[in-house]
C-alpha cells in the first residue's frame, strides 16, 4: 500500500514539477510580453505627446491671426479703393 502511495506521490511530484516548470516558462514569456507591451505603450504615449506638441508647432494660431489681420487689411484696402 505504501508503495502505491509513494508511487503516487512521486507521480504527483513529477507532474507538479513539469506543470510548474511549464507555467514558470509561460510566466516568463508572459512577463516578457507584458514588459514589451508596456514599453510599446510608453513609446506610443511619448509619440502621442510628441504629435500633440508638433501640432502646437504648426503655428495654426499665428496663421489664423495673420489671416484675420490680412482680412481686416483687405477690408480697409477695399474701403480705401472705393473712397478714391
Amino acid at each position, binding site marked *: 500500500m505504501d508503495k502505491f502511495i509513494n508511487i503516487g506521490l512521486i507521480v504527483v511530484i513529477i507532474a507538479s514539477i513539469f506543470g510548474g516548470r*511549464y507555467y514558470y516558462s509561460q510566466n516568463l514569456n508572459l512577463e516578457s510580453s507584458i514588459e514589451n*507591451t508596456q514599453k510599446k505603450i510608453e513609446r506610443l504615449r511619448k509619440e*502621442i505627446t510628441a504629435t500633440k506638441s508638433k501640432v502646437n508647432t504648426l503655428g495654426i494660431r499665428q496663421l489664423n491671426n495673420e489671416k484675420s489681420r490680412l482680412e481686416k487689411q483687405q477690408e480697409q*484696402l477695399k474701403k480705401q479703393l472705393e473712397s478714391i
Partner: protein
Amino acid sequence: MDTLLKLLAVLTLIWGGWMYFKNADCDTELKKIHNELKVAEQEFSDAQAAYDAEVKKREALDGEVNALKENNQELKKEIALKTREKRERAIQERRERLEAERKARAEELEKEREHRIALLDREEQLEKEEKERDEASRKEEEDQMAAERSEREKEWKDKRLQKMIERSERAMERHLSSSAYVPGDVNDYGQIEKLKQNWTTFVQAGIDAAKKGDSKRFETFGRKLLNVARSLNRISKGQNADCIKDATDFLSEGREILKAKKQLSKDNP
C-alpha cells in the same frame, strides 16, 4: 523517507499551483496591458489623424494667407495706381485752372495796360496842350518883356550916350578953349587943330562903337582918345590935365556901358 516524499510532493504541488495561478494572473495582466495598448494605439492614431488634419488645415491656411497677401498686394498696387492717376488728374486740373487764371489775368492786365496807355496819352495830350499854352503865354510875356526891356535899354543907352556925348563935348570945349590953351610954339596951332579934329572923330567913333556894342573898336578909339588927351596936355605944358581925366572917364564910362549891355544881353538872350 515517506514523510520527506510527502513533504516534497506537497511542496512541488504548492509550487506548481502557485505557478499555475501566477500564470493566470499574468495572463490577465497581459490582456489588460493589451487593452491599454489598443487604447494607446487608438490614441496615437487619433493624434496622428489630428496632426494630419492640422497639417492640412495649416496648408489650407497657408494658401488662404498667401492668397490674401497677393490680393492685398494687388489692392495696394491698384490703390497706388488710382492714387497716382487721381494726383495726376488733380495736377492737370490745377494746371488748367492756373492757365485759365493766367490767361484771364493777362487779358485783364492787357486791358488795364491799354486803359493806362490811353490815360497816359490823354494826360500827355493835356500836358502838351498845357505846355503849348504855357509856352505861348510865356513867349508872349517874354516878347512883351523883351520889348519893354529893349525900349528901356534903348532909352537908358540913348540917355547915357547922350550924357557921355554932352560931357565929352563940354570937356572938349573946356579943354580946348583959348583960356585953357597955352601954346609953347607957333607951329603948335596946326597940331592943336589936328588933335581937336581927332578928338571929335575919336569921340564920335567911340560913341558909335558903344552904340553897336563893339567893345574892341571902342577900346581902340578910347585909347586913341587918351593919347590925344595926353598929347594936348603935353603941348599945353600940363595945362590940360583934366583933359586926360575926361578921356579916362569917357573910356571907363564906355566900358561900363558895354559891360551893362553885355550883361543885359546875357540875362535876356
